[in-house]
């Protein structure tokens, strides 16, 4: 019975979509389609002057709806444009500061992170990375995947990619 009702609801929503599809083919409608309810753009590029510019053809982060996809960020210091010196601890700290600055552009904080991927060049530095990481995610830390890779652009030791859901 539940399945029947579900099927009915699916058909109902499919039927409702048909007239919208017929109407929604003009350029204005295409433009409208790139916006979500409430007038927010479907895909908004996030930029922070507190971060070094991207080192390739990518954005620092994208917001779509309440979800923020942050680019993989490394411990680049915006003042020098280079990876901070001092090893895994300062690099992890700087990478997370960069992520924090980017999330702030979307009105979010690190507390909003739901998923994270940590790429490291040396997993023997795992515990040191964790110590800094824990400082930045004191409560309800995101789910996380950590792997060792053979190299990271610009000679970084760590690159962290975060997905967040902001209010």
């Amino acid at each position: 019975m539940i399945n029947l009702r579900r099927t009915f609801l699916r058909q109902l929503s499919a039927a409702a979509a048909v007239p919208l599809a017929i109407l929604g083919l003009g350029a204005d409608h295409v433009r409208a389609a790139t916006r979500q309810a409430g007038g927010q753009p479907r895909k908004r590029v996030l930029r922070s002057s507190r971060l070094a510019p991207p080192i390739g053809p990518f954005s620092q982060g994208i917001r779509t709806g309440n979800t923020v996809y942050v680019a993989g960020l490394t411990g680049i210091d915006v003042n020098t444009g280079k990876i901070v010196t001092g090893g895994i601890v300062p690099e992890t700290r700087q990478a997370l500061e960069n992520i924090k600055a980017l999330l702030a552009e979307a009105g979010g904080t690190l507390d909003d992170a739901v998923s994270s991927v940590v790429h490291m060049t040396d997993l023997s530095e795992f515990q040191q990375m964790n110590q800094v990481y824990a400082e930045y995610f004191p409560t309800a830390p995101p789910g996380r995947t950590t792997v060792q890779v053979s190299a990271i652009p610009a000679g970084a030791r760590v690159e962290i990619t975060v997905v967040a859901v902001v209010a």
Partner: protein
Amino acid sequence: MTDDAHMELGDPTLATRASTTGQASVGQKTVLKTPDAAAPIGPYSQGIKVGNLIFVAGEKGVDVRTGKVVSGGIGAETRQTLENVKAILEQGGATLDDAVAATVHMTDLGEFESMNEVFAEYFRKDPPGRTTVQVTALPGGARVEITVIAVASV
């Protein structure tokens, strides 16, 4: 058990059977399948659409006609890879402009700039957030594998 009951459980045999029609829905997921991109080389889907989110599998520079990674190095491979991503996104009603996140796995970061040149051709405006790392090997002997998440308009 009805088919719907199988769908509730995410029965993989149902997904496989239905996917021969091009798109199959299992629960909230729609499996994207296109002959214009390389067939999966393992038990995974080319792409999954849920709501207006599309998760494209890690694509490589496999030419759908030969089933092999194209020759010619990183430029040619990156181009073919992004053509495959594009075909899968189109199957889900999206384009590369809809990409919000990308992960680039490479076997040699010495080729970073060459990859970037082709990547920039395909993502001219508002490119996705991106993560790039070097790994020790990729399936099929590929030099690059790119994973994209996109948000379609419908």
